[in-house]
C-alpha cells in the first residue's frame, strides 16, 4: 500500500468521473424503480384478484433472479431480439426493474401496516376506495415506507457495480479501479480508492436512514 497517495493523485479525474457515472446510474434507476414499484404495489393491493396475481408474479420473478442475469437480458438479450437499448438505458432498466420489486413490497407492507379498521371506518364514512387510499392510508403508509426505501437506495448504489460491470460495460467507479489496476499493477491501491468512493456514498446514506428510522418510528 505504498502507492496510495500517488494512485489517487494521478487518476483523480477518472475516479471522479467514475463516481459520477455510478451516481447517474443510481439516480435514473431510482426513478424507474419508484414509478414501476408504486404501480406494482397498487396492482397488489387493489381488490381485484387477477391484478393481485400479476403484481405477485412481477415481484417474485424480479426479486429472485440475479441482477447479473437481468443485465444480460436487457443488453445482449434485447438487442438480439431487435430491440437495442443504449448502455445507460439498458443498465438503468435492469437495475430499476429489479429494485422496483423490492420497492413494491415495501409500499405494500407499509399500506398493510395501517390497520384495517381505518379502511373500514373511512369507507363507512362514505369515502370512495380512491379517496380512502389518498387521504387516509397513503399519508400514514408513507412514514413507514421511507426507511426501507432509503435502505434500497443503499442497495442500489452497491448493485450499480453489477449492472455496470456486466456485458453493458459502463465506465463506473469499479471499472476505473480495474483500468487503473491493469495500467499500474497497483491492485490494493486501485481497489482501495474505488472502495472509498463507494463508502463516500453508502456510509452517509446509512447514517441518514438510521436517523429517519428513529424519526418516523410510529409508536403504538
Amino acid at each position, binding site marked *: 500500500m505504498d502507492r496510495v497517495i500517488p494512485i489517487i493523485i494521478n487518476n483523480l479525474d477518472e475516479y471522479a468521473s467514475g463516481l459520477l457515472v455510478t451516481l447517474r446510474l443510481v439516480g435514473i434507476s431510482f426513478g424507474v424503480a419508484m414509478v414501476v414499484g408504486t404501480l406494482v404495489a397498487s396492482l397488489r393491493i387493489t381488490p381485484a384478484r387477477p391484478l393481485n396475481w400479476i403484481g405477485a408474479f412481477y415481484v*417474485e*420473478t424480479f426479486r*429472485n*433472479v*440475479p*441482477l*447479473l*442475469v*437481468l443485465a*444480460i*437480458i436487457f443488453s*445482449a*438479450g*434485447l438487442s*438480439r*431480439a*431487435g430491440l437495442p437499448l443504449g448502455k445507460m438505458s439498458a443498465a438503468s432498466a435492469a437495475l430499476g426493474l429489479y429494485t422496483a420489486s*423490492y420497492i413494491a*413490497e415495501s409500499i405494500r407492507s407499509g399500506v398493510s401496516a395501517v390497520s384495517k379498521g381505518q379502511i373500514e371506518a373511512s369507507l363507512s364514512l362514505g369515502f370512495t376506495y380512491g379517496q380512502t387510499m389518498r387521504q387516509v392510508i397513503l399519508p400514514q403508509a408513507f412514514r413507514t415506507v421511507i426507511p*426501507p426505501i432509503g*435502505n*434500497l437506495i*443503499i*442497495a442500489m*448504489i*452497491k*448493485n*450499480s*457495480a*453489477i449492472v455496470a*460491470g456486466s456485458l453493458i460495460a459502463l465506465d463506473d467507479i*469499479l471499472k476505473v*479501479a*480495474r483500468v487503473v*489496476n491493469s495500467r499500474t499493477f497497483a*491492485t*490494493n491501491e486501485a*481497489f482501495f480508492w*474505488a*472502495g472509498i468512493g*463507494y*463508502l463516500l456514498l*453508502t*456510509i452517509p446514506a*446509512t447514517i441518514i436512514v438510521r436517523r429517519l428510522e428513529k424519526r418516523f418510528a410510529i409508536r403504538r
Partner: protein
Amino acid sequence: MGYLLDPANWEWVFAGRNFMFLVERFLNNIILALITMALSLILGLVIALLRISKNKVTSVVTGIWIDVWRNLPVLLILLYFGLALPQEAKEFWVDIAPGFLPPQIRSSGQVIASIVALTIYNSAVIAEIFRAGIQSLERGQGEAAAALGLPYWKAMRIVILPQGLRRMVPATVSQLITLTKDTSLVSILAIQELVAAGSIVNNTSGSPFGGVGVPAPILQVYVVVGGMFVVFNLALSLLSRRLEVRERKRAGDVETVTGLEDQITIKPV
C-alpha cells in the same frame, strides 16, 4: 413478443443435453452458496459476539469492520480478491479441495478467492442478523439471568443465544437467497457456474451437447437461466415464510428479524 415466443428459438432446450448441462452447473452455484453460508455463520457469530461485548474497543472496532464490508459492493470485493489473492493460496485450494466437489469447483484456484470474498461480505451481514436476533429479546431476559447469578458467557450460552438464534432463522434463509443470487457474480472470475454455462450454450448454439445446428439465442438462454434461479429462490422464500409463521405460533407475538437485500430490520409485533 413474437421473437420471444417463437418455438424455433426454444428448440435448444430439448436438444441434446443442454438443459441438463445448465442444471448441473447450477449445482455449482448452490454448492458455493452453501459453503459460504456455513463459513459465514461461524464467522458471523464470532463477529456478533465481539460486537455486543461490553468492551468498548472491541465493540467499536467490530462495528467499523461490519459497516465497511457491508457498505461495499460485493462485486468489488470479489474482483479484488480474485486479483489480489496470492497464487499460492489458489494452488493450495486446488491441492486440498475435497473429492466430492464437482470438478469445475475443485480445479479452479479462483474458487478460493470467491469463497473468501463472499464469506467476508456475508459474515458481516450475518453478524448483523445475529445481533438483531439477540437485541430483539426483551432486556429482562439478560437481567433475569444475571440476577440468577449466571456469569455473562453462561447466560449467553443457555439463555440468550438459544432464543436469539431461533428468531434469526427466517432472516438467515432469506440471506441465503441473496447469497445464491450473488454466486452468479463469480462467473466474472471465470468460474464455471450457471451464468457462464448459459454463455457456453449460447456461443456454441448448443452443439457440444448434441443439439447440433440448433440456435440458442441469448435472450431465451438467459430467460431459462433466470427461471432456474427463480424456482430455487422461490422455494427458499416459501420456506422462510413458513419458518416465520411457525416461530410466531410457537413463541406468541414476538419481534422477528427479517432481512431483505442485505438489510436487516427487526419487525415489531
